């Protein structure tokens, strides 16, 4: 018995040592990466897009021979907008699966797992969260602009072009919601606007009537929604139901399928990041998943492709070995990536810049009225 135990122990140790020495490099071994996404909960619609986008990228890569001959395998984890779930998932990915890279989503989630990423030298790439505090973090890259760019655009557009200057705000009480709201307050104030009242709501709530009634009583000529996921549609519907007749507005994260379908959201003033619903990618996505693709599907497709490119480079440089550190160095040295939505250049703060479009939501589509070019 004792012999059996000790040999088992030795075996385990040996197994551990081999994986540590040549991570995922032996010919034919798949390269495993993680993806920590909102697969359930209020943001499940983002999850469908994000997972679909990443999956499509992996399939295309594998069909074309994989990354330097290795198959790419993505391990999906659900964070359900809960940071503690995300931390557990990240630990599992790092300690058990020993991934060199993981896709991540949401501001609060990415911030919660970033220390683990930095400590274990695992690159995480966020294609969805936009909080300003995501900028300049070690091992965290964002292939999306931080929110102050986009909020700056919508604040100016609302105040100058739409002449809406008295705003009441409903804010999701989490990192992303609060950050976006305070940035909006600042940028809107700078262009002569004023936030008359603000109400915070839980992200997992489904009844916003009391808060909306309070905002209605405060007047204002615009309801600004600093929340995301399915809540946006519920807020829009319940606001109309309570007789709030003023226009509503929000940045790109309000654009989920529920919002497009909502009657209350008709006429909503939005900014969005460039996404072409008639692109070949969108058609393929629709065919494969039987649901319309959205901006975030492209984001996670691109993030996976960026990883593939960086991994290839890193493996070439380190004679086939793939580590998080190698991926990070490769991203830093390549910097500019060609993606299906155009050239993406990582800034010194680990974020990306993109064109921003402003327009009105009309029968399930955004009618773009203005495009604000990204500052070079």
């Amino acid at each position, binding site marked *: 018995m004792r012999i059996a135990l000790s040999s088992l122990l030795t075996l385990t140790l040996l197994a551990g040592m081999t994986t540590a020495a040549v991570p995922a490099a032996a010919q034919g071994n798949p390269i495993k990466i993680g993806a920590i996404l909102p697969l*359930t*909960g*209020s943001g*499940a619609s983002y999850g469908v897009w994000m997972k679909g986008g990443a999956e499509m990228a992996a399939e295309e890569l594998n069909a074309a021979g994989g990354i330097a001959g290795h198959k790419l395998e993505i391990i999906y984890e659900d964070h*359900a907008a809960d940071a503690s779930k995300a931390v557990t998932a990240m630990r599992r990915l790092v300690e058990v699966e020993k991934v060199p890279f993981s896709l991540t989503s949401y501001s609060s989630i990415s911030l919660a797992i970033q220390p683990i990423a930095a400590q274990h030298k695992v690159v995480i790439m966020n294609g969805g969260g936009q909080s300003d505090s995501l900028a300049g973090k070690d091992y965290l890259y964002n292939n999306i602009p931080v929110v102050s760019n986009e909020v700056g655009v919508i604040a100016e557009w609302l105040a100058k072009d739409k002449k809406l200057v008295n705003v009441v705000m409903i804010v999701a*009480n989490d990192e992303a919601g609060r950050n976006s709201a305070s940035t909006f307050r600042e940028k809107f104030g700078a262009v002569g606007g004023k936030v008359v009242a603000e*109400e*915070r*709501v*839980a992200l997992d709530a*489904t*009844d916003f*009537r*009391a*808060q909306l*009634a*309070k905002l*209605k*009583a405060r007047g204002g000529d615009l309801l600004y929604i600093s929340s995301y996921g*399915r809540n946006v549609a*519920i807020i829009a519907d319940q606001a*109309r*139901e*309570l*007789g709030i007749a003023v226009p509503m507005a929000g940045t790109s994260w309000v654009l989920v399928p529920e919002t497009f379908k909502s009657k209350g959201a008709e006429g909503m003033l939005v900014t969005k990041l460039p996404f072409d619903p008639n692109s070949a990618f969108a058609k393929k996505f629709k065919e494969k998943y039987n649901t319309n693709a959205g901006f975030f599907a492209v984001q996670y497709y691109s993030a996976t492709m960026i990883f593939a490119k960086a991994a290839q480079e890193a493996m070439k440089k380190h004679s086939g070995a793939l580590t998080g550190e190698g991926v990070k160095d490769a991203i830093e040295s390549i910097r500019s990536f060609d993606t299906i939505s155009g050239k993406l250049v990582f800034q010194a703060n680990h974020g990306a810049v993109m064109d921003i479009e402003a327009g009105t939501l009309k029968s399930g589509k955004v009618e773009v009225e203005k495009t604000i070019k990204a500052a070079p």
Partner: protein
Amino acid sequence: MDLFLQLAATGLVVGSLYVLCAIGWGLIYGTTLHFHVAHGAVFTLAAYYAYAGQKFLHLPLAIAVIGAILAAAISGMLIDLFIYQPLERRGAIRTTLFIASLGLLTLIENVLAIIFTPDPLRMDVGWLADSVQLGPIFLTRLHLVSVGTAIIGFLALMAFLKYSLWGQAIRAVSSSPEMARTVGIDLRRVHLLTYAVGSAISAPAGILLAMDVGAEPYRGTTFVLLASVAVIMGGIGSIPGAALGALFLALLENLGVWKIPSEWQSTISFGIFLIFIVVRPRGFFGRKIQSAEI
């Protein structure tokens, strides 16, 4: 003033769901003295029964609702029959029953989350979702139905307890189980009946919630907690007390938003409850809570 009226109306709508949940729970607790937290699971099950009836069996709305109420009543009875009664026969104390009930609540909630995902599933209610304006107040037709259901449910339960033979048996057991037994009432059958009636009266609250904002697996816990607070506030054994307690909590929660930021809603309710239980443990009406009853 308009805001006050709107918040009061919203409070009344939420309150009508609390009332249905609280009088059902209060009837069961007052009669059996089981701290039946799994009532929250029955409430949630009712919502999913109705949802499944409409979406999977393609039943018309009314049939799905009636079917769900019946199924909820049966679920309540089954819990008593297969969990509480065997435990009581083996001489389990109330705490054991409470733990069993809590376990069952967690189990059912998680199974529902696995089957239906944790996301809210909203039923189609057609024109009931349209909004109506009453002076400065905006509500939906469904909200008016909620208030109506609560009023009818409350009156029907009172009439049932007062005028029907079975209702009188329940009241007899509620006021003194020993006395009821000596006059030949079968306690176990009365308990089963109480579970059926209590579950059926609370089921519409779960279903109305599924129609308004969606069925969610973990919503029952909040509701059963509020129901127990309402019953203790109203006075154990008193159905009007439970209804009043529930209405009070809902109005407090919603009117509180008027002057206090909304994230403090539940802090207000439970703060008032603590004051109540210390200052007036008898509740509005009804008997004082004995330590043995909790």
